[in-house]
C-alpha cells in the first residue's frame, strides 16, 4: 500500500502547529528572506505551545497526516514565560508514549525555532520532511472515511 502511494508520486503531508510569537515569525522571516523549504507543511498558528492540547497531535495522526511538528519559542523565551516549559513536559510524555505503542518516533516531532531563525525554520522543515518521507505514508491509526 505504501509502495502504491509512493509510486503515484506520494508527497508527505505534515501539519506544523507553531506558536505565534516565535516559530510563526520564524516562518515569516524564512518567507521574506526567500529561503526555500519543502512545501509539504501546513502551518497552524496557536498563541503558545503551552496552549497545544496533545490531543491535536493524536487527532491529526488519526485524520491521516504523515507527520506532525510542534514548534515554539526556545526555553526561556516564551512570550508567556513558562508556556513552553510546561509544553516540554507534556510532549516528552506524549512522544515517548506514542513511540511505546508502536508509532514511528519520527512522525511526531518537537522543536524550538525563534523569530530570528528563518534559516533554522527552513532546516527544520527540510529535516522533518525528509524523515517523514523516509517513513512513507502513515498507515497506523488512520481513519478511513
Amino acid at each position, binding site marked *: 500500500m505504501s509502495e502504491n502511494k509512493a509510486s503515484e508520486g506520494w508527497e508527505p503531508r505534515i501539519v506544523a502547529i507553531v506558536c505565534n510569537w516565535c516559530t510563526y515569525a520564524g516562518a515569516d522571516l524564512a518567507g521574506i528572506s526567500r529561503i526555500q523549504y519543502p512545501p509539504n507543511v501546513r502551518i497552524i498558528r496557536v498563541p503558545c505551545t503551552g496552549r497545544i492540547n496533545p*490531543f491535536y497531535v493524536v487527532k491529526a495522526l488519526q485524520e491521516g497526516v504523515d507527520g506532525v*511538528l510542534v514548534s515554539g519559542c526556545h526555553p526561556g523565551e516564551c512570550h508567556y514565560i*513558562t508556556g513552553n516549559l*510546561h509544553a516540554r*513536559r507534556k510532549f516528552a*510524555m506524549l512522544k515517548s508514549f506514542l513511540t511505546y505503542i*508502536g508509532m514511528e518516533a519520527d512522525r511526531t516531532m518537537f522543536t524550538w525555532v525563534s523569530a530570528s531563525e528563518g534559516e533554522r525554520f527552513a532546516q527544520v522543515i527540510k*529535516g522533518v520532511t525528509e524523515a517523514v518521507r523516509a517513513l512513507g505514508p502513515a498507515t497506523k491509526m488512520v*481513519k478511513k472515511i
Partner: protein
Amino acid sequence: MESIEKKLREEAKLLLAEKRVDVIVGFEKGTLPLVATPCFIENPDDAEKLVWNACCTQNLAKFVHDVLSQHRASQVRVKPEDRKKKVVGVVGRGCATRSIVLHLQEKQYDRDDVVIIGVPCTGYIDYKKLSGKLGGEEVLDGAAEGDQIKVKTASGEKAIALKDVLAASCLTCRFNNPVISDMMIGDPAPPMDPDHEYDDVNAVEAMSVEERWAFFEKEMDKCIRCYACRQTCPSCYCKTCFVEQSQPRWVGVGEDETDTQVFQIMRMYHMVGRCVDCGSCSSVCPMGVDLRKFLKKLDKDVFELFGNRPGSSLDDQPPLSAYTENDKENFIFNP
C-alpha cells in the same frame, strides 16, 4: 485479617456514632460468592457489614470523590449560612490513599472532608487469573482466608494460594500501606516486590516498533468502549469526559477501530502523573484489555523524567503542572 475486619467495624461504628463522619465508604459481601462490593454505610449498626479481604478490588477513592462532589452540587442553591458539611469516612489502603492525595492536590475537596481509616493491604484477587486456575468453572462458594482462597466449584473444593492469583498491580506494589491516614488498623503489611514493577514495560520496550504496534492494536481491538475503565478510575472525574463531548467531537461514536485507539491513547495520556496503578480499570474491564502494560509505561516515564511517584506525598507537585529549567530535552528535533 479477621482481627482487622473486627477492628475496622468497631472503628467505623464509633466514627458514625460520634457523628465524626456522615457516611463510610467500604466493602461489603457481594451478591455472588467470593466477591466484595463497595458500600455506603450511614447507620452505626450497619458497620457490621464491612468486610476487608482479598476480594476487595475497587479503588474506593472514586466514591469519596463522587459523594463529595454530589454533595457540593446539592449545596449550590442553599443559602451560604445554611450549607451543610459532609464528611466521608473511607477504608483506605495504599492505592486508595494515593488517589485521595491526588484529589487533594487537584483541589477536589479538603483534607477535613475525609476521614481515612488506613488498612494494610496484601493484595487482591485477579478474577481472570482465578478463573484460569479453575478452568473457567463457576464459583459456587468461596472464602478468602489470609493467604489462601477456598473455592467450591461443581467439580469439588479447592484451596488456591492467594499469591498465585494476585492482580499484577498488587504483585509489584510499592505502596501497599496507606500514604496518609487518620487512624491505622492492624500492623503494616509486609512489602510486595516493587523492584520488578517495570518488568512488563521493559518487555514491551524490548520489542520492535512493529511488534509494539501489533500488540497495541490487538489489545485495543478487544475494547468494546463500555467505558467501565473510566467509570471506575478515581482520576477520571471530569463532569463531561472528552469522549462524550460534542463541541468539538474528539472521538467518533461509531465502531471505527481508530476511534477506540484514540480514546484509549487519550484516556491513558490523561493519567500522566495521575495513575496510582490501583488496577481497578484492568479489573473491571469485561474484555480483558491489558491496560496496565500501557499505564505503567507512563508511570515509569514520569518517575524517570520528573522523579515523581503519583500520589505518594501531599507535598509533591503534579508533574504536568510543574517544570524545571533543565527538564530533559533529548526528544527535541535539531536538524
